[in-house]
């Protein structure tokens, strides 16, 4: 077991609405197995992104616990610096859209986090180039600035950036939403090939084909609550 999520609840108190409370997650519990690919599905507003953000600690949980076993800490209550350390070395997260820094080339966007954690620059760039070409990004774009790319091209850079460090726990939030079917297949192949048994993935996917192609199990959320947890074989586009 890599993660034990126990009765996780996330409430947002909106002061601008005179303190009205919105519930993002309501008592969600799930055990995530070491090395598995857990897909998270559900309609909009069901709490999928909130779950990932709570795991990454971008959201502060209101109650419940998230036991991360390799470091033996409760992510929900440990201090900021522990989170920073884990984010740097073990836990990766990627949102749907590329967080852009102007005038950094696609290769450097992917390579930089590697360099920052100590990899020699040339090796980092090489890994970056490998990933980008596996995802079908045209060679001439490698040294270009993602600001000028299409949505699909940007997402490829984004996905490459997520995969590059080979984190222990990878949290993916709709990383392929803007990709055409052809590229989605490339992504699936790459993820399968690149991720070994030492990487656990918790991923939010809208596209059920991807879920079926990649996941081991599927967690279904609705209205912030856990509705179901099934092996992928039993999952058949339950939620529209």
């Amino acid at each position: 077991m890599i993660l034990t999520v126990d009765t996780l609840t996330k409430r947002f108190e909106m002061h601008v609405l005179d303190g009205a409370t919105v519930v993002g997650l309501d008592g969600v519990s799930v055990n995530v197995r070491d090395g598995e690919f857990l897909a998270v599905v559900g309609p909009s507003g069901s709490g999928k992104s909130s779950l990932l953000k709570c795991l990454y600690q971008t959201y502060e949980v209101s109650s419940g616990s998230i036991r991360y076993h390799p470091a033996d800490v409760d992510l929900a209550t440990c201090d900021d610096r522990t989170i920073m350390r884990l984010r740097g070395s073990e836990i990766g997260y990627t949102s749907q859209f590329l967080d852009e820094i102007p005038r950094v080339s696609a290769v450097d966007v992917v390579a930089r986090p590697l360099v920052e954690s100590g990899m020699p620059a040339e090796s980092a760039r090489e890994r970056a180039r490998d990933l980008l070409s596996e995802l079908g990004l045209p060679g001439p774009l490698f040294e270009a600035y993602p600001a000028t790319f299409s949505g699909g091209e940007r997402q490829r850079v984004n996905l490459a950036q997520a995969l590059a460090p080979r984190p222990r726990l990878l949290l993916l939030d709709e990383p392929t939403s803007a990709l055409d079917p052809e590229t989605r297949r490339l992504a699936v192949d790459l993820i399968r090939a690149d991720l070994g048994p030492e990487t656990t993935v918790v991923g939010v996917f809208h596209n059920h084909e991807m879920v079926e192609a990649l996941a081991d199990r599927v967690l279904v959320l609705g209205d912030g609550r856990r509705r179901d947890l099934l092996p992928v074989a039993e999952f058949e586009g339950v939620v529209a």
Partner: protein
Amino acid sequence: MTVLSGTGLTRLYGDPCGDCESLTGDDAGRNRCPACGTIVACADVSLDIERGEVLGVVGESGSGKSSLAELLALERGEGHSRGSVRFDGYEGNLLESDYDTRTRLRNDDLALVHQHIRDGLTLSFSGGGNVAEKPLAAGERSFEAVRERVRSLFEQLEVPVDRMDDPAETYSGGMQRRVQLARALVTDPAVVVLDEPTTGLDVSVQARVLDTFRRVQRERGVAAVVVSHDLGVVRLLADRTLVMRHGRVVERGLTDRILEDPHHAYTQQLINSTL
């Protein structure tokens, strides 16, 4: 490993009556003492920074963030200051240290990048001369060695080396800011304090300058305190962030958490107000 810490940092401007702090702050909704008119620029702020970390400090005008930056950078200011600042490798409370200790620290280990270029650079000197000043003041006596160090920093901070000998006043705003950064980094300090690093820069230039700093900061493992009213600056650079209002810290945490899951009413207002 903590490199810089501040405890109970307080700065008041005026003639304090003794009640100033209790009559001001977040709950009171003001930083001016109603009894005596004293401005409580910041009160009782504590923080610590570890090696290689970047701490953001956000707030609007009057929030106290610049006063905090000045206290941390051991700038001689007006007003009454209280509290303690400790620095790894130096004894005692540095707010009470003598001129020589303070100068040594600020020359070697702690650098401040001023908000206004005029305060940070001698515009009549060349850009290279501005960067050379610290190593020369520290006793470097080989001309070639100084020149090489200046050239290296210009390259790292992406300032054209062929402009090295031109007077700093002929540089563009972005270049001047980079020279300030070079000057701050030339002695390999443990901590750099950036006070409103995007002031005076065109929008198109801002992101580039910040990105350069970010790259150099990570490569060298320099710790930094970044003070800004601009959330984008903090988002790009800081690992953790403090939100200040009326001289107090109202919220603190991981930067992405502050930006995406703000708890305090004021923080929410601040996040919602971003264009």
